[in-house]
């Protein structure tokens, strides 16, 4: 074996090694992508927030066994949020006994302004069983992520801000799985009919 040959073999081995690393990397990336893609379809997950009425920390487990009806909004929202919460309350009014199986939650996306004190009594103004939830910025961000909620501050001319946000009501089954969602196109009758058909 000449020195040159040795060198060539060494080069080949290095090349093969590089190839292998490349394949592994690419495979890893594809796998990661795949995992990512499958998780984007999942809505909902564990959360830890603060019940504005009681000041107590609550988690998704606090409402176990109930259907969760979750709306993300904020109290400085004069139009869309009251409309959504009112529609939800009208739907709840039509559920009769099945209303007890529901846990309607109003989660703020504006924890900076929506402290427990500000949130207190807000949700209950629409229906006594709607629970207002707030939390630290981290807790809220985590809940938003779990539920794939978009929320962003939009500065206003006077130095304040409004929130751009997803405006939908999520319906989670008693096991915590996403079932459906209501939009601004869904009227209270349709919501009630769907909930009646879902609840046992």
């Amino acid at each position: 074996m000449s020195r040159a040959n040795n060198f060539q073999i060494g080069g080949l081995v290095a090349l093969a090694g590089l190839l292998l690393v490349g394949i592994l990397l690419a495979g890893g990336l594809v796998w990661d992508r795949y995992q990512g893609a499958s998780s984007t379809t999942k809505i909902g997950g564990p959360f830890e927030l603060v019940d504005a009425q009681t000041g107590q920390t609550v988690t998704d487990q606090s409402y176990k066994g109930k259907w969760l009806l979750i709306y993300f909004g904020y109290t400085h929202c004069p139009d869309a949020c009251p409309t959504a919460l009112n529609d939800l309350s009208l739907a709840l009014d039509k559920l009769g006994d099945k209303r007890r199986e529901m846990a309607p939650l109003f989660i703020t996306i504006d924890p900076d302004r929506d402290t427990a004190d500000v949130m207190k009594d807000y949700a209950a103004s629409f229906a006594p069983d709607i629970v207002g939830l707030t939390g630290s910025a981290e807790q809220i961000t985590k809940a938003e992520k779990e539920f794939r909620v978009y929320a962003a501050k939009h500065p206003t001319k006077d130095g304040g801000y409004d929130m751009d946000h997803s405006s939908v009501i999520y319906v989670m089954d008693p096991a915590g799985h996403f079932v459906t969602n209501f939009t601004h196109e869904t009227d209270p009758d349709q919501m009630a009919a769907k909930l009646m058909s879902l609840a046992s």
Partner: protein
Amino acid sequence: MQFRRFLFSGLAALIAVGGAAVAQQAQPAAAAKVEVTQAWARATPGKSTIGAAYVTVTAPAGDKLIGASTPVAGKAQLHQHTMENGVMKMRQVDAVPLPAGQAVTLSPGGYHIMLMDLKAPLVAGQSFPLTLTFEKAGTVETKVMVGGVGASGPGGTMAPMDMGHMNMGSKG
């Protein structure tokens, strides 16, 4: 003597009233008039210090709504809601266009007059004055009726029947 004084004061009063009437007429008559009807607002939930007022405006010759003020709020601004891919956005606008002869209704999900820094909660059944400013017609004062916390129209708390087509107004 007494009678003469009476006559004088009567005459003075008449002139004053007449003058005021002329002055009052002169302002809106100078430009196109607008008609403001069905002014309403929702009661504010909890300790909220913001609210929204809605009106229907008809400007026979066309105009623009460019501002609003009310003694019940620190600030009143014109806002518009839009819905894009399920994301609700609210933006302050400089004006609400009022095409000639068309009744323009501000309603949930579209334009609203945002009331900020409310001095007291808006309570269902009560009313408050609202002054609207138009580009041509100047100012017009109207009385806003406060409906329920989730009212969807000027009918107050009865309005839920209309929700089907009001539809939380996402068409913004």
